[in-house]
């Protein structure tokens, strides 16, 4: 997969523009980004371009990143919290090549972070930009397939349907079962899809010091949350929003209060829970933190 994409890239990039996109496309995307920032949570339509990678690879995020990136930037790309998946590695290599930018895996060193499915554990800072890859930008889409209707609902701020859906969740499960792409209301106005991040990450969007930009390539939408902006997860008085809690700390770095992934160790049911944010976990281990399985996995690796 990696090699195939590299070959495609080389074919198409014989005479590429800086950051791949032509200037007219960048202007169009830049205009959409500015409108998105001025109307937090509103989905701005844009004329998405073909990129040298399939839609599932985050072409919306890639186009946003390509339109903001400059030679002074340092780019980090994560996929499900990890810097080393095929998707993350390929996108990082793509921009290192077409925009000649510095890349990093360290959250604190990045000026632009493109992400699929996670927000880094380390608190983002003033001046950083988080670019989300979004598959389905419309939070009402599963409830109402017609674009004309969802657009009307946003125009009137008529979000009753969304509450009905969450309430049906409660009726069926005794709690709100939605754990990913959990809808938020931005600055008291627009209901927005935070992309398929775990709801664990929703509170990080609220009053973030960083600018958050969202790009949906196939659906041709860009939206934004400026820094220091109110982002509230939808809930009910009797069923308040809650994030996931994990019983045990990270097996490798002993971190608590972070999002953990389950890793299967063997075919006898052995498993462990580790940080989904690989950079965060590595940094903690480098600082000397040890989880209860840190030694075992080190031995196993040798």
């Amino acid at each position, binding site marked *: 997969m990696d090699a195939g994409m590299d070959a495609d890239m080389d074919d198409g990039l014989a005479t590429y523009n800086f950051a791949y996109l032509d200037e007219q496309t960048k202007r169009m995307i*830049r*205009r959409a980004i500015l409108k998105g920032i*001025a*109307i937090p949570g509103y989905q701005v339509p844009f004329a998405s371009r073909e990129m040298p990678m399939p839609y599932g690879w985050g072409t919306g995020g890639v186009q946003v990143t390509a339109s903001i990136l*400059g030679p002074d930037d340092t780019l980090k790309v994560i996929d499900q919290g990890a810097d080393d998946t095929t998707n993350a590695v390929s996108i990082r290599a793509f921009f290192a090549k077409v925009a000649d930018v510095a890349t990093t895996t360290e959250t604190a060193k990045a000026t632009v972070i493109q992400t699929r499915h996670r927000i880094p554990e380390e608190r983002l800072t003033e001046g950083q930009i988080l670019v989300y890859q979004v598959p389905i930008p419309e939070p009402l889409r599963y409830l109402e397939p017609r674009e004309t209707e969802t657009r009307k609902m946003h125009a009137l701020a008529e979000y009753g349907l969304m509450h009905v859906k969450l309430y049906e969740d409660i009726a069926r499960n005794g709690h709100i079962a939605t754990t990913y792409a959990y809808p938020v209301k931005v*600055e008291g106005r627009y209901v927005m899809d935070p992309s398929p991040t775990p709801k664990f990450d929703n509170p990080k969007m609220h009053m973030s010091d960083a600018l958050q930009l969202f790009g949906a390539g196939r659906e041709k939408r860009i939206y934004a949350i400026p820094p220091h902006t109110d982002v509230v997860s939808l809930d009910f008085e009797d069923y308040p929003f809650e994030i996931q809690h994990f019983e045990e700390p990270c097996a490798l770095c002993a971190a608590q209060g972070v999002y953990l992934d389950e890793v299967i160790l063997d075919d006898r049911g052995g498993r462990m829970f580790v940080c989904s944010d690989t950079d965060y976990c590595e940094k903690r281990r480098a600082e000397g933190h040890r989880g209860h399985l840190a030694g075992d996995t080190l031995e196993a690796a040798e």
Partner: protein
Amino acid sequence: MAAGAHIVEGGFADPVFASQSVFRAVMDAMARPGPVQAIDTDLRPPAPLNIAAAAVVLTLADADTPVWLGQDLARDDAVKGWLAFQTGAPLAGLPSEATFAIAANAAALPSLSSFALGTQEYPDRSTTLILQVETLTEGEALTLRGPGIKGSETVAPRPMPGHFDMQWRENNALYPRGIDIILAAPDAVACLPRTVRIGEGES
């Protein structure tokens, strides 16, 4: 000298990197209303178009974006010719047809509500007003609150349009419709997105 001799000169020497850096300054200014962002460029636009306003319009405008010019700019053939050559943007006959509006004289600006305000379903279809000012730091201080602002910020532009506070409150009341303003001093910009509230006390 004929205007024609000048329209091909004075643009960005390196448009790709210059527009990227100008865009980031504008994006920062829009995302964090108040703080002044420096515009560092080699542009030499014809007066009375100032450098920062010219940099913003060259970065964002093109054949897809009708540009409306305030009267001081509209009656200057050198300015019109230069903008047409450098951006390819058509001139908008009415403020309400403009994607971008550039005004060099705040006193002669039509009311903010005469620009495109977007619709309730497409509030993005609104005018971005690039308003030239002499200073962003030495005018009367405006206290700003809203998204992008931690607590409050100030910006002190001069000159500003008449009854600006009242006009801006009317703009706020249209939300999510409304215009956004890029204030352009010769060497810097600051932004007033439609979400910004001016001069309110603690709420």
